[in-house]
């Protein structure tokens, strides 16, 4: 059942504020977090809701991000609906517990305002924090707008807590670019949001009536089986995400997909990017199309699990893919997003040329001209029949 328009509340919200509203409506049991820019508003706003009695959750203002994620694991183990928020160095401090949360199958929703990692210390956006945790076992969903951040946060609980999944979910927004940018956001009425998200039904909670041991020592004889199961759960994510989103679409009319395609059908060159860069890429594609260039865009939302087959299909017969990404994997063959894209396309017949452009580190602006530059280079590489493994754009060399 869709919600009638007069019941939809429209507000100008930053990405952080939109997430805070989603967390309010998700009827959390516990939110545990530590302040870090540019995520802080999420927790500040949520604390305000708590102070005004608008939420029935315990807010645990922990002494570190490590403890934030630890308290989330403890609360989730009892069967609570749990969320936290962080970014950058804070996320890095959580790193050890991210793996525990995923392997212990705690459906925690972790909202992140993606920010560069130190050093030098820098508060602005890139994806090095999210890419750093990419192997932790978290599902990763990167959002382009405040609206998408709100919608995705609500959907994240249903995805995480689904019994075929039971994995934590990271919901990422670009620090400052989305976290602090006010946009028009449509919000569901509280009761409709609450009904959509539902109540968590834990599978094996800590319960004095049925005492179990959680987080045991598992050595050479069993550790691997835990990982096998975790991998199997990850394989269920795309299917469940589609179900959750279909339900959400019925309610709101909005959907994003595991990635968004824009004018890709006949495209020779496809820009592939995540988060807010998706918007810029589309604008540039429009301009280039006016000039007769067949350019399309894929804005990837789900980085984990990586939608390998789906992406290969969507790229189809394009001649080249220009991957723009805001992270660097020092010493790697190429960078995280391009590595995945190359792997996805290796087995295809068309095997397009892949150009990898590292851009926007530490919040360096990625203007339309950066995409144009990438486009020109990609065209050259097409002519040559090969592209370098990666290169940086928009940096003094």
């Amino acid at each position, binding site marked *: 059942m869709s919600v009638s328009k007069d019941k939809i509340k429209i507000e100008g919200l930053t990405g952080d504020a939109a997430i805070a509203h989603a967390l309010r409506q998700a009827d959390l*049991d*516990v939110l*545990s977090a530590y302040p870090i820019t540019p995520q802080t508003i999420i927790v500040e706003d949520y604390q305000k809701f708590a102070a005004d009695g608008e939420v*029935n*959750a*315990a807010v*645990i*203002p*922990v*002494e*570190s991000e*490590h*403890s*934030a994620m*630890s*308290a*989330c*694991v*403890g*609360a*989730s*183990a*009892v*069967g*609570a609906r*749990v969320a936290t928020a962080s970014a950058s160095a804070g996320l890095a401090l959580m790193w*050890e*517990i991210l793996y*525990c949360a995923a392997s*212990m199958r705690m459906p925690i929703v972790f909202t992140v305002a993606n920010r560069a990692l130190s050093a030098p210390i820098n508060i602005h956006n890139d994806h090095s924090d999210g890419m750093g945790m990419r192997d932790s076992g978290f599902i990763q969903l990167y959002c382009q707008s405040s609206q998408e951040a709100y919608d995705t946060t609500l959907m994240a609980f249903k995805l995480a807590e689904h019994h075929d999944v039971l994995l934590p979910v990271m919901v990422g927004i670009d620090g400052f670019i989305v976290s602090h940018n006010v946009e028009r956001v449509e919000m569901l009425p509280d009761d409709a949001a609450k009904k959509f998200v539902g*109540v968590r039904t834990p599978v094996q909670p*800590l*319960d*004095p*009536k*049925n*005492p*179990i*041991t*959680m*987080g*045991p*020592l*598992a*050595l050479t004889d*069993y550790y691997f089986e835990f990982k096998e199961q975790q991998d199997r759960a990850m394989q269920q994510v795309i299917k469940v995400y589609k179900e959750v989103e279909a339900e959400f679409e019925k309610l709101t009319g909005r959907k994003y997909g595991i990635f968004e395609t824009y004018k890709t059908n006949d495209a020779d060159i496809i820009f592939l990017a995540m988060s807010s860069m998706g918007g810029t890429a589309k604008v540039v594609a429009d301009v280039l199309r006016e000039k007769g260039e067949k350019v399309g865009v894929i804005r990837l939302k789900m980085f984990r699990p990586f939608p390998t087959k789906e992406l290969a299909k969507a790229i189809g017969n394009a001649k080249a893919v220009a991957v723009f990404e805001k992270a660097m994997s020092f010493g790697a063959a190429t960078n995280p997003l391009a590595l995945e894209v190359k792997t996805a396309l290796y087995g295809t017949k068309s095997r397009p040329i892949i150009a990898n452009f590292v851009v926007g580190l530490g919040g360096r602006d990625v203007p339309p001209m950066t995409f144009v530059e990438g486009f020109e280079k990609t065209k050259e590489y097409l002519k040559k029949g090969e592209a370098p493994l990666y290169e940086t754009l928009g940096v003094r060399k």
Partner: protein
Amino acid sequence: MATDNKPAVSIKDMIKKDRILNSGHRMCAGCAAPVVIKLMGMALRGPTIVCNNTGCLEVATTIYPYTAWNLPWIHVAFENAAAVASGVIEATKVMHKKGRFDYEHIDVVALGGDGASFDIGFGAISGAMERGHDMVYMCYDNGAYQNTGIQRSGATFPGQETTTSWAGSVIPGKLERKKPLAEIIAAHKIPYVATAEPSNYRDFITKFRKALEVEGPAFVHAFSPCPRGWRSATGESIALSKLAVETGLHPLYEVINGEEWIMSSASKNLKELKPVDEYFKTQGQFKHLFKPEWEDFRKRIQEQVNHDWELLKKKCGVD
């Protein structure tokens, strides 16, 4: 487990009490930690959840697919049991209000060894105590990172030889003093802090029960001999624990609200401290201290212990 009106402090009551830790675990012969845990079990009053830091106790009692625990139990990492416990206790309260958790109150106990408590998890404990969660944090202190092979911790005594504080030709084992963790936690002004050890088992059980009964955080520092790490006789652990009290190396006391210091009778009734040499003689890890070149160093340890003892007596109003 039914709610118990009083802790099982008599042998008669103790044998009737449900065991929280089963036999068959893989702790070393003579390790006092399982005794400490069983004594804790004698103090429990109702539904309890245990959050355990990484350490000997954790690895040796929960080797998958087995577990020695009869209580709901969770381990996440080395340094975070206090934070995990914060999440557990707050979640149960909220979920009870929403009708999704049966118990209105649940006792939450966080456990850690001295490495987890004095060192790596110190921040998490401090945070949990400051936030006032209604939990008991118990440190079982065996004086070093015994699980990883006897490395020094903030709880290691001066003069103690470990695999990272070797007794060599120029260094007599650990040079630094032991971190006064119970005092530091007491300085958080939490309702209850106690030191305990298994030879004074009634005192232990009574204190642990008090720790559960106060509203808000409580901290118990339990001494726990380790024959493997200390190079002591496996049958002597409880006697060594007693000797640690008698030599003033692990004095027994309680601190109420960070202000009222009460010396426990086992310490208070000592006419005078036994020399620390008596304690040192029982363990291979202190053997080197009796070489002539470390005579002065050993004396200085004794002076420090005497000094700390006098300070403690003063705080507790004991003459």
